[in-house]
């Protein structure tokens, strides 16, 4: 090729690629409102985003896996706590020093309206359709290992108890060691879960009642707690 026309080798591929990108993005951006439920982006939800940016949360945590890798991804964190755990999640953010003893989080002076808005915002991000990422919250891959730790979450045990470094501090941490010290058999553990006050009148734990569990779930959970895995 003549030297005079060499620059075409540069300009043509560039233009082709740019045209492809613009075309695709146009389509893709049209899909975003549906995939993100943009109709739910009220002013209060957006205020949550403003607050998260104000405190620069994203330089320790990631959203969609982007940001600082120093702390867990927040995209779907609201799913872990659920509406029932909203107050607990608020407390974690407002008083991190109570909840984290190893690696620490900065204590900010977050206002009441900001924290409420953050909750609404995190609730919104947790429902964005992002091709099933991260793996821990994935429908396909889920939290692997045993069904037991899934149950602890699904049944909201972790609102009060801790397991594997996650969960609340109102009840004792659920180590196998603790379980075996407190119950003489799997059977009594099982009875206790269904109705805590039957074995110990002073127990503050909520009675779950048999209806909350299937037999299989209860078996799995008891085995899991007893063996610690």
């Amino acid at each position, binding site marked *: 090729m003549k030297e005079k026309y060499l620059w075409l080798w540069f300009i043509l591929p*560039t233009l082709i690629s740019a045209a492809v990108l613009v075309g695709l993005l146009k389509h893709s951006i049209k899909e975003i409102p549906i995939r993100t439920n943009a109709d739910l982006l009220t002013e209060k939800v957006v205020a949550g985003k403003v607050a998260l940016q104000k405190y620069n949360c994203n330089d320790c945590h990631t959203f969609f896996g982007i940001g600082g890798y120093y702390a867990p991804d927040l995209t779907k964190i609201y799913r872990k706590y659920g509406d029932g755990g909203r107050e607990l999640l608020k407390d974690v953010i407002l008083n991190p020093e109570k909840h984290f003893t190893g690696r620490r989080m900065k204590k900010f002076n977050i206002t009441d309206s900001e924290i409420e808005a953050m909750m609404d915002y995190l609730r919104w991000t947790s429902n964005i359709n992002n091709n099933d990422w991260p793996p821990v919250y994935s429908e396909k891959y889920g939290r692997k290992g045993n069904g037991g730790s899934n149950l602890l979450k699904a049944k909201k045990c972790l609102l009060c108890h801790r397991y594997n470094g996650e969960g609340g501090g109102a009840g004792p941490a659920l180590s196998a060691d603790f379980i075996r010290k407190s119950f003489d058999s799997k059977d009594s553990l099982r009875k206790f879960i269904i109705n805590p006050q039957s074995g110990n009148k002073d127990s503050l734990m909520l009675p779950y009642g048999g209806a909350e569990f299937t037999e299989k779930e209860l078996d799995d959970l008891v085995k899991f707690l007893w063996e610690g895995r």
Partner: protein
Amino acid sequence: MGGQMIMDSKKVIYFYFIIALVLFSLQLPFGIYLASSYALSYPQWVVDLIPFSTARAVHTNLLVLWMLLGFMGGGYFIAMAEGGLNKIFSPFLALLQLIILFIAGVTGIIGFFFGWTQGRPLLELPFQMDLLVILGAVIFLLNITATMYRGWVQNRKFSAISFILLLGVIFTALLYIPGIFFYKNITMDWTAWWVVIHLWVEGSWELIASAVLAFLLAVLTGVDRKAINKWLYIEAGLVLFTGIVGIGHHFYWTGHPDYWLWIGASFSVLEPLPLLLMYWDAKRHLEHKPEFLSSLVGTLMFWSVVLHFIGAGVWGGFMTLPFVNYWTHGTQLTVSHGHLAFYGAFALLLFAVFYVLMSQFKGIKNLFEKRGVISFKIMTGSMIAMTLFFLMAGTIQVCLERIAGWSYVEAQEWMRWWMGFAAIAGAGFAAGAAIMVYDLFFLKEKSLNSK
């Protein structure tokens, strides 16, 4: 104003490099603090005083700032030299622009410590400072374009290198704009964010780097211009062809439709190709003049293309595969890639520019290279070690947190040691960097009795 003030273009460019080197030195302690925060658990008061988030913002913004200043200084020189001129269009404006950018950057970075931030990774600079940056960028674009234009008018000189360089700086400035606004929808926010970050490092910065590399090869090895131009066009064309749609590798998990998984992957797996060509081509040209290849600058350039290919091409090409990225996305593997790619592609190349131009400005003919070679070895060895430690930590993270499904915190416990080693390697890197910065400040002629 500056009309009758006679300012030497070379002196102004020298200031760019001095400031870039100072900012580079400041970047490093923050990196060490970041890595050590993973290894040790700092007490609450330390975290409240300088949280990881602030340190990370400082570390990364200093990086971007020093690299841009380095490229601007180098860009001015190339525009001047390629136009056959001995002066840029306006040294005064160049100095003014340096001051504006320095003030914007440093004010912004000091502001981070007081919570003045836009709160988006790498683009934390507040809006007001963004406006100053844009002002500086506009002055730069006008000044460099006018310099190239003058070269064309006076000497009929406008080379392929100038052309690619000019496009690179124009795109870099334009791409900054989507990043300065507030976006309500996080998916749109990340889309704009990646337009800045991805199209910078895998697009416009890559153009600038290939122009700079071509310039150094042309003036230092004496290889035929025709060969250099041909490869420059082909490489730059391939970089943009694969890299522009390649942005899709950042749309996999951010709320975009799933067709990006295969479109983004198809284009971005080809991104290593131009980097391989660049390596192969530079190596051939360098070998054309063996005594240069073994000199300090030749070594810097050689290792730049090697680590550019490995850090960006191989590391990045591996993580860009959707079935890999699903598990590795946003882990220490990403950090490993980011460090090796930035170091190879841009840092080493800029060091080569600093050595060539700063010694030329000082009128040094036969440079005393010993300190430079030692610092190069320490920095490069430490950087390779550091990225391997991040790689180990990242592999543990992927296995435990992502695949086995452990909680984030539990998996991190097992990564501590490797992050600690990374901090130690970082200290080694900083030591090597200190030697280099000192050396560049006090360059000297090789004396007859020192060998």
